[in-house]
C-alpha cells in the first residue's frame, strides 16, 4: 500500500512538472498529462476519496483547456497545479486537517474554474472580465453598484466571490457579515427574497460594513489564490497580532455575543481514527502533556469560582484548552479539537468579562474538562488504526457549548434545562466550528514548534503587577524520569550503602591503626548517607494533586446533595511515595464522599442544630513518627453509636454491644455490607465504601482510626508508611537461616513454658496464652530447615494474625528490627508460597521476607493433610 502511494505521488509529481511548462497550443503535453492523471487515479487507494475527487476535477479542467473552453488559461492551469500539489501532500502525509483543508480549497477553485468555463460557453460573447476582478470586498462593492437586479448571472458571481472572500477572512465578525450578505444574495437570485430591492440594499450595506472595518493589512489575505497554502497565509497574520495595540489577539478577541445556533439537529459525531502511521511517542507525549494541562486547568477553574476576578486563572484555563486544541489539530484529532475549540470560546467570553465563571458556566467548563480527559483516555487506550471512543455525552456537550444560553446555562443555575427552540437559522454558518479558523490560529504556533504561542500573546493582558503574582505560581523546572530507572538508581544507592558499611567494618579499618584511612572512610560514609536520603526523596511526590481531586469531588457531591460545603486542605505539600499516591486516592474518594454525603447535614438541619449553614470538610496531611498521616475532619452529624449498633445487630455482625468500646463500635462501619445511610443514592450508601477503604489502607500497610462525636462531627485518621518499598521487618533466625517478618504482622512474641503447650493427637500443637488457645506451627518444618531448635520452650513463639484467628509460629530467635527494601526474587524462580519477596540485608546477603498469612494457610493445609493421612492409617489398622 505504501508502495502504491509512493508511486502515485511520483506520477502526480511528473504530471505537475509537465504541466508547469505548458503551452496552451501544445496539445500533446495535455494529452500526456491527462493520461498520467488517469493512471494515477486508478492507483489511488479507496480511503483517499478526497484525492480521487480532486483529481477527477483536475482531469475535467485539463479537458476544458484541451478543448479551449477554459475561461482563462492561466488561472485554470494554476488551479490544476494547486490541486495536484494538495493531492500529493495529502497522499504523502497521514490524514490531517491541513491537507484536508488544502484539498477542499483546491477543489473549490477547480470547480469554480470549470463553472466559469461552462458559463463562458453559454454567454459566449460576454467577456468574463469582472470575474477576475472580484478579489476583494472593494471590488465587490464597486461591482454591485453597476449591477442590475435582473442580472442573475452577475449576482451569482458576486455571491460566489463573497463566499471565497469569506473563507479567507480572518476576522470572525467580518466573516459573519460577508456570509450574511452572500445569503441575502442567494435569496435574491433564487427569487426567495420577498423584497428584492430592499434585500439588495441590505447586501450592499453589509458589504460596506464589512469593508469599512477591514484593516488594510488583512486585505492581501483575501485574495482567492488557487489552493492557498495555509502555512504561507498564516504567518502573514502573526505580525499583525504582535504589534496590535489591543491586548488580545485579534481573531480571539472577536468572539461574538451569543447567537442562536443553526437547527438543533442532533449531529452524528464520528469518532476519530488513530492513524496507522501515527507517531506513537508523539501521541503519548501529547496525552501526557494534555493531562497535565487539564489538571492545572481544573485547579484554576476551581479557584476561579471563589475569586472570579483572577485573570491569571482564566488565562491558565484558556491556555490549557488552547494548547490542547492546537496539538490535537496537529495530530488530526478532529473531535478533540472541536471540543477544545468550543470550550475555548466559552472561556474567552469569561476572559472578556462577558460572563462570570460561576454556576452553570463553571460546571460547563468542568464538564468540558472531564470529557476532554475521557477522550485523552480513549486516545491512550486506542489501538493503531482503531476508532477512538467518544464519550456518550459528546454531542450534547458540544451542543450546549455552542450556545450555553439557549440551553439554560447561566451563572447561577445548576442544571441544564431542555434545549430551547431555535429561532433564527440564518446566522449559523459563521458561528459554527470551522477548521480553517483553528488552523489559522494555531498553525503558526505549531509550525514554529512552540505550542506556548498563546502564552506569549496572552500574558500581555494583565497589568505589570501580575508578574509578581505569576512567579509564585511558576513551577520548579523538572525532568521526567522513567520509574524503572529511578528504582534502579535507588537499588544501586542501597548497594553503595552496604558496600560502604562493609568497608567501614573491615578489620583493617576497625583496628584503628590507620587514622587517615578511617577518616576518609567516614567522610565517604557521610556522602553515601546523604546520597541515600536524596535518592529516597526522589520517589516522593506531594499529595497536592490528590487533594485537588478531592476538592472537585466535594464540590460535585455537595451540589448533588444540595449541601453547602467548604473544603479546606492543609499540608498538601506533604510528600509520599509515588506508588502510594495512586493507592491512596481511592480510599480517600470514598471517605470524602461519605463525609459530604453522610457527614454534613442539609442546610435546614444545620440551621436547626444551630450550626453554620455551610459545612466544613477539612483534609490535612502531615508527617508524624515516620508515618504520613492523612486526616479528614468534618463538622457534620458525626457517627451515632446507637444507630451503628442497631444496624450491626440487624445485619448479624454482632449479637450485642456488650463490652464494646466506642472505638470498637465505630470500627463496625468497616464491615462489608455496612451502611447507615437511610437510602442508597448514586453518591454513596451501598455499603461497600468503608469496607473497601479499610482493605485498601491495610494493603498499604496503613491503619485507619475514627473518632467522632454525635452532632459535632467526625475525624478519620489514616496512618500510612512513607513508602511501600521499605518494609519495617523483624529479622528472625531459624537454624542457620534468617528470615524477615514484617513487623506489622507480628502481634507479640514470647518464650513459652512447658505448661502452656499441649498437643492434639500427637501431631497438632497448641499453646495457651492468657486463656486463648492457638495452634503452633513450626517454621523449620514448613521450610525444611534441618538445624533448627526442636523444643519450643527454648525458642520463641511469634503470634501472627490469620484473619480473625491467631496462631503462633516457632522460630529460634529474634535478631532485631530492620528496615528493608522489598524486591522480587526474580522471574526465573516464580512465586514461592509463604515468601512475599526478598531484601538485601546489612551484610549483603539476601533475606527472604515472609508472608505470614500464606505461611499460616500453608501450615493449616499441612496439618489437615497429616490428620487425614493419620485417620486413614487408623481406619486401615482397624480394618486389618
Amino acid at each position: 500500500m505504501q508502495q502504491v502511494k509512493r508511486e502515485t505521488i511520483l506520477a502526480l509529481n511528473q504530471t505537475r512538472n509537465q504541466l508547469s511548462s505548458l503551452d496552451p497550443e501544445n496539445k500533446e503535453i495535455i494529452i500526456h498529462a491527462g493520461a498520467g492523471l488517469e493512471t494515477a487515479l486508478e492507483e489511488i487507494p479507496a480511503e483517499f476519496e478526497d484525492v480521487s475527487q480532486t483529481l477527477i476535477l483536475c482531469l475535467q479542467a485539463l479537458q476544458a483547456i484541451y478543448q479551449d473552453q477554459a475561461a482563462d488559461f492561466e488561472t485554470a492551469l494554476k488551479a490544476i497545479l494547486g490541486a495536484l500539489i494538495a493531492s500529493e501532500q495529502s497522499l504523502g502525509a497521514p490524514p490531517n486537517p491541513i491537507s484536508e483543508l488544502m484539498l477542499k480549497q483546491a477543489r473549490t477553485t477547480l470547480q469554480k474554474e470549470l463553472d466559469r468555463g461552462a458559463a463562458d460557453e453559454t454567454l459566449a460573447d460576454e467577456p468574463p472580465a469582472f470575474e477576475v476582478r472580484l478579489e476583494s470586498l472593494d471590488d465587490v462593492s464597486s461591482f454591485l453598484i453597476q449591477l442590475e437586479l435582473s442580472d442573475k448571472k452577475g449576482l451569482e458571481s458576486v455571491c460566489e466571490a463573497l463566499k471565497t472572500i469569506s473563507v479567507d477572512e480572518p476576522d470572525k465578525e467580518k466573516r459573519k457579515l460577508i456570509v450574511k450578505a452572500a445569503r441575502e444574495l442567494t435569496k435574491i437570485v433564487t427569487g426567495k427574497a420577498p423584497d428584492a430591492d430592499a434585500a439588495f440594499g441590505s447586501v450592499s450595506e453589509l458589504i460596506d460594513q464589512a469593508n469599512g472595518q477591514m484593516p488594510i493589512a488583512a486585505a492581501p489575505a483575501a485574495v482567492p489564490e488557487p489552493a492557498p497554502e495555509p502555512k504561507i497565509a498564516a504567518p502573514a497574520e502573526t505580525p499583525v497580532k504582535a504589534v496590535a495595540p489591543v491586548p488580545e489577539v485579534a481573531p480571539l478577541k472577536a468572539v461574538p455575543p451569543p447567537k442562536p445556533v443553526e437547527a438543533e439537529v442532533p449531529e452524528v459525531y464520528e469518532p476519530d481514527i488513530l492513524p496507522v502511521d501515527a507517531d506513537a511517542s508523539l501521541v503519548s507525549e501529547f496525552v501526557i502533556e494534555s493531562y497535565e494541562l487539564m489538571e492545572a486547568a481544573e485547579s484554576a477553574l476551581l479557584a476561579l469560582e471563589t475569586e472570579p476576578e483572577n485573570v491569571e486563572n482564566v488565562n491558565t484555563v484558556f491556555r490549557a484548552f488552547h494548547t490542547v486544541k492546537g496539538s490535537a489539530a496537529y495530530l488530526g484529532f478532529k473531535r478533540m479539537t472541536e471540543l477544545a475549540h468550543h470550550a475555548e470560546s466559552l472561556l474567552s467570553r469569561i476572559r472578556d468579562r462577558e460572563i462570570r465563571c460561576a454556576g452553570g458556566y463553571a460546571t460547563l467548563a468542568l464538564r468540558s474538562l472531564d470529557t476532554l480527559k475521557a477522550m485523552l483516555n480513549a486516545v491512550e487506550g486506542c489501538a493503531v488504526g482503531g476508532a477512538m471512543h467518544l464519550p456518550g455525552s459528546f454531542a450534547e456537550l458540544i451542543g450546549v457549548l455552542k450556545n450555553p444560553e439557549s440551553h439554560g446555562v447561566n451563572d447561577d443555575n445548576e442544571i441544564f434545562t431542555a434545549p430551547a427552540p431555535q429561532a433564527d437559522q440564518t446566522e449559523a454558518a459563521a458561528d459554527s466550528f470551522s477548521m480553517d479558523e483553528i488552523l489559522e490560529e494555531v498553525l503558526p504556533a505549531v509550525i514554529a514548534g512552540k505550542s506556548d504561542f498563546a502564552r506569549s500573546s496572552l500574558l500581555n493582558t494583565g497589568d505589570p503587577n501580575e508578574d509578581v503574582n505569576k512567579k509564585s505560581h511558576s513551577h520548579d523546572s523538572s525532568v521526567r524520569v522513567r520509574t524503572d530507572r529511578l528504582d534502579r538508581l535507588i537499588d544501586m544507592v542501597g548497594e553503595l550503602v552496604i558496600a560502604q558499611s562493609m568497608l567501614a567494618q573491615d578489620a583493617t579499618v576497625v583496628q584503628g591503626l590507620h587514622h587517615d584511612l578511617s577518616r576518609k572512610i567516614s567522610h565517604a560514609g557521610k556522602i553515601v548517607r546523604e546520597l541515600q536520603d536524596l535518592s529516597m526523596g526522589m520517589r516522593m511526590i506531594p499529595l497536592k494533586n490528590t487533594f485537588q481531586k478531592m476538592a472537585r469531588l466535594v464540590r460535585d457531591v455537595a451540589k448533588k446533595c444540595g449541601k453547602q460545603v467548604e473544603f479546606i486542605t492543609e499540608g498538601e505539600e506533604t510528600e509520599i511515595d509515588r506508588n502510594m499516591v495512586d493507592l491512596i486516592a481511592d480510599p480517600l474518594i470514598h471517605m470524602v464522599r461519605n463525609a459530604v454525603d453522610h457527614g454534613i447535614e442539609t442546610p435546614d438541619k444545620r440551621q436547626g442544630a444551630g450550626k453554620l449553614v455551610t459545612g466544613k470538610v477539612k483534609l490535612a496531611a502531615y508527617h508524624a513518627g515516620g508515618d504520613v498521616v492523612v486526616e479528614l475532619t468534618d463538622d457534620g452529624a458525626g457517627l451515632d453509636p446507637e444507630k451503628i449498633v442497631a444496624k450491626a445487630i440487624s445485619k448479624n455482625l454482632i449479637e450485642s454491644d456488650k463490652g464494646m468500646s466506642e472505638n470498637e463500635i465505630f470500627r463496625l462501619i468497616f464491615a462489608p455490607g455496612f451502611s447507615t445511610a437511610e437510602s442508597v443514592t448514586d453518591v454513596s450508601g451501598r455499603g461497600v465504601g468503608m469496607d473497601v477503604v479499610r482493605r485498601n489502607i491495610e494493603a498499604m500497610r496503613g491503619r485507619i482510626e475514627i473518632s467522632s462525636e454525635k452532632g459535632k462531627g467526625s475525624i478519620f485518621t489514616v496512618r500510612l508508611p512513607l513508602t511501600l518499598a521499605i518494609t519495617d521487618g523483624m529479622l528472625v533466625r531459624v537454624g542457620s537461616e534468617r528470615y524477615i517478618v514484617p513487623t506489622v504482622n507480628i502481634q507479640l512474641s514470647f518464650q513459652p513454658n512447658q505448661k502452656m503447650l499441649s498437643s492434639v493427637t500427637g501431631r497438632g500443637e497448641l499453646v495457651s496464652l492468657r486463656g486463648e488457645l492457638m495452634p503452633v506451627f513450626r517454621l523449620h518444618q514448613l521450610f525444611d530447615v534441618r538445624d533448627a531448635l526442636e523444643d519450643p520452650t527454648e525458642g520463641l513463639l511469634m503470634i501472627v494474625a490469620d484473619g480473625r484467628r491467631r496462631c503462633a509460629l516457632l522460630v529460634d530467635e529474634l535478631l532485631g528490627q530492620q528496615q528493608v527494601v522489598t524486591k522480587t526474587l526474580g522471574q526465573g524462580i516464580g512465586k514461592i508460597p509463604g515468601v512475599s519477596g526478598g531484601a538485601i540485608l546489612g551484610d549483603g546477603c539476601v533475606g527472604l521476607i515472609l508472608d505470614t498469612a500464606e505461611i499460616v494457610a500453608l501450615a493449616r493445609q499441612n496439618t489437615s493433610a497429616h490428620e487425614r493421612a493419620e485417620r486413614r492409617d487408623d481406619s486401615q489398622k482397624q480394618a486389618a
Partner: protein
Amino acid sequence: MNIETTATATKTDVKNHHGGKFLSFFLKQEEYGIEILKVQEIIGILPITRVPRTPEFVKGVINLRGKIIPVTDLRSKFGMEEREETTETCIIVVQTNGLEIGVIVDKVSEVLDITDKEIEDVPTFGTDVSTDYLLGIGNTNGRVRLLLDIERILTAQEVVQMQEITATSEAFAG
C-alpha cells in the same frame, strides 16, 4: 531497525545449529558450551540464600549488585552428584527472554568460535544430559563440547517445578 533484525537473525541462526561464539565450562570432566550472546556476566561464587519449597536444583537467590536473582545448580539439574565449592566454582549469569538466572558450574574454560562444520548432530545416548537440551556437539581440534540450549534448560525448569509441586501436593493429599 536494521540492526535489530540482524541481531534476531543471528540468534535464530544459532538456534538452528549454526556456529558462533560459545562460552565453554566444565561439569565433572565434561565440557559444555553455551551461546555467548546469552551470557551476561561471570561472577565468582557468592553467598547463596536458600529458598524453601523450591526444587532441588534451585540453589537459592543471590544479591547481584542490589538485584536479587535466582541461581540454578547445573550439576543437580543434570542429575550429577553434588560437589564442594572450590575457588574455580563460578556463577554464569544468563540473560535470555527477560529471564536473568545464575547457573553454577565447576569451572569456566574459554570463549571459542565454533563453525557450522564443527557442530555435529547429537548422538542418542552417551551423555548425562537429555539430548533435548543440546543444540549439538562441537568438535574442535579433537575436543568435544556439548552445546547446551540454555533457554530450553531454563524453561524446562518450569516444567520440572510444576511436576515437583504436583508431587508434593499429592504427597500431602495422600
